[in-house]
């Protein structure tokens, strides 16, 4: 047990830090720092920079283009990404489909899709949730009927994040109604340009537009786009949802948000003094820092297990559950920090090219403009990717045996 970095780990961190800080485009950094809307191009530009350096897929095996890092190196990379104000890397291809294809894909599928994921040439979205199948994912009803060398897909997916940018969707579809509902599900890759695919945006409570309905009407999908065996998609889905614990706690980003909170609290005033000098506010910051540190140490314990060869287990549910609580706790403190400026809504922040708080605009400093939207928007964190209720159920059943 040693919490200090080795000299090699120090050197690695410095190398990563230097590169990331020098390479991130300032316009993208500004958007991330202020919590502004990022558009497709922002993500793609940045991901290609990382790809060129060979760092876009830290979790992939070396033979498929991963950098071959140890868990500690991956942890340090996540830290430095966040510290450098990197946008979140879009996970659908890199952390979800990529590993799935490496595990279950045919050689042809791997050769066709993996390089394009690494190069951010294809934007993937995830077609899992349906209007009638949220937390109870296996009750999905989108149908894929085999017709010669094609499947014909009919149904509706919802809550499909950033589908408006997507070239492809990986989807769970029902190919059989026999047996338990988990049986009869298949994992299919769908070209979003296929006739019959319609994307309709869903406006969220913060005014943003990240999620969508995707309607699938007689969509013809070549049978070669089946991943794994027909009717065995649940196995693929479980692998996808369970295999990746890196980053699901969001520790590095929460640390960055704590920096932001400290920065804002230093600018805001209370009774004529900087808010950050207020003992009560500091205590609430200390409380959340305890939770964040506990979360980080727990993540490190699990990573150490993994480095020692243990398979990822249901303990990762702690990371998702507590991670979102910490993230949401920080958004609450940010909201409180800006006082009654929290009311001010500048619709411009939802636009791609917000110039910043105009001098003659409402009395909201640039740093405060997105705080309320962020608080509202981030309630989704404890709902998606397995809600906190689902995570508690996993812990109760898979760990405690209840």
């Amino acid at each position: 047990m040693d919490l200090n970095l080795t000299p090699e780990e120090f050197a690695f961190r410095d190398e990563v830090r230097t590169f990331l800080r020098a390479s991130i485009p300032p316009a993208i950094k500004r958007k991330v720092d202020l919590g502004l809307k990022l558009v497709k191009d922002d993500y793609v530009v940045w991901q290609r920079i990382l790809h060129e350096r060979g760092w876009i897929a830290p979790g992939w095996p070396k033979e498929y283009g991963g950098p071959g890092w140890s868990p500690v190196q991956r942890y340090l990379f996540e830290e430095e990404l966040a510290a450098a104000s990197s946008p979140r890397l879009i996970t659908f291809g890199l952390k979800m489909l990529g590993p799935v294809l490496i595990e279950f894909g045919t050689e042809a599928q791997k050769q066709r899709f993996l390089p394009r994921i690494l190069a951010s040439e294809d934007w993937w979205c995830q077609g899992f949730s349906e209007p009638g199948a949220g937390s109870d994912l296996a009750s999905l009803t989108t149908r894929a009927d085999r017709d010669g060398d094609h499947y014909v897909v009919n149904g509706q997916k919802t809550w499909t994040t950033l589908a408006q940018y997507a070239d492809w969707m990986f989807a769970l579809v029902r190919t059989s109604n026999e047996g338990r509902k988990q049986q009869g599900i298949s994992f299919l890759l769908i070209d979003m340009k296929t006739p019959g695919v319609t994307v309709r945006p869903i406006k969220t409570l913060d005014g943003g537009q990240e999620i969508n309905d995707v309607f699938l009407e007689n969509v013809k999908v070549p049978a070669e786009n089946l991943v794994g065996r027909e009717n065995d998609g649940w196995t693929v889905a479980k692998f996808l949802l369970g295999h990746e614990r890196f980053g699901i706690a969001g520790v590095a980003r929460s640390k960055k948000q704590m920096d932001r909170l400290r920065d804002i609290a230093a600018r805001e005033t209370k009774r004529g003094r900087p808010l950050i000098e207020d003992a009560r506010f500091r205590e609430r910051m200390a409380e959340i820092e305890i939770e964040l540190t506990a979360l980080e140490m727990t993540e490190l314990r699990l990573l150490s297990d993994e480095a020692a060869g243990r398979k990822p287990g249901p303990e990762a549910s702690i990371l998702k559950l507590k991670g979102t609580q910490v993230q949401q706790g920080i958004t609450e403190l940010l909201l409180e920090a800006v006082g009654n400026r929290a009311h001010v809504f500048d619709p411009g922040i939802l636009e791609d090219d917000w110039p910043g708080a105009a001098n003659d605009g409402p009395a909201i400093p640039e740093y405060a403009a997105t705080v309320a939207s962020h608080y509202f928007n981030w309630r989704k964190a404890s709902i998606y990717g397995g809600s906190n209720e689902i995570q508690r159920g996993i812990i109760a059943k898979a760990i405690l045996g209840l």
Partner: protein
Amino acid sequence: MNFTFSDEQILIRDMAERFFRDDYGLEARRRHQALPGGFCRDTWARFADMGWLALGIPEDLGGVGGGAVETAILLEAMGGGLAVEPFLSTVVLGGTLISEGASTEVRADLLPGLAAGDLLLSFAYSEAQSRHDLNDVRTTARADGGGFVLDGVKTVALHAGTADRIAVTARTSGAERDAGGITVFLVDAGAPGVTVTDYPTVDGLRAGDVTLDGVRVGKDAVLGEVDGGLDLAERAVDRAAALAAAEAAGIMAALTRGTVDYLKQRRQFGRPLGDFQALQHRAAEMYVETELTRSLAYMAAVRQDGGDPATARRAASQAKAKAGQAGRLIGQEAVQLHGGMGVTDEMPVGHYFKRLTMIDHSFGDRSYHLERLTDMA
């Protein structure tokens, strides 16, 4: 001692609930928000017709009497109805300042118009550095001839953009955070030197920043005492805090109801969500917290009318602090229990959640009121 509504109060409640159930709703709200000024003038006129704007105004000035409890009843219904109209700013803040601070002439001049729906008001007491403290005033009012000249910038004044008159706090003497030396002025929104930057708020209402650049007002613009305006301003804001807690209670009740309905109707794992005990218990907590908030909101309303000022202040802070804590819990739980539907713009839950959240950040947030109670005790 009793905690029951009079027949007249029940009448007010039933009428208001009926109005918001039948003649308002999320679609109407969206339409109202899109209108100039961000609310519906016709609806405002109906408020006037129903006597809602005349509450708290003596009958000889066009009012219907009544007090804070009646207003709390209305605001609870408005919470459930998600009203965007400038009721708190005009009737509660503005009305209190004029009723308690204005001369007989000014009252007679303005209150009938307020009751009739012809006069819209705003109270601009906040400044960029002031956070929730009313005594933190940099805006100055310099005596000049018989009147005053006002200079400064006030921030986040509810419905300032549509107000005909704007009450402002300004410093007539003393240093920035002194309790003494503050005076409340009622300024014509169209007066030379007054600029209002109007903007939407995140909860779908409107607010504005008010710039005062050498604005000249007469002595008759003073509400309350020169240099002694802080107490009047705090009374008005305390009243708004107590009544905002009632609005919050109305929202909480709507969110609890809506969540329970959703749990009954939505099926997962082969049965309604409402069958899951963990969710039942959380819905029960939402209900309990709603009732506790409602109890304190009405206590605070009762305490705002007459009686001991310290008791009134403490009651307002208790109710508002409770509304902040319970509101956060209930809002977050309602969204969480609605799952993916909870974060969409389509369902009412998100709109309730936003309004409830912003009530916490109006008229002093939970931290402010807790600290005030701590200082007070």
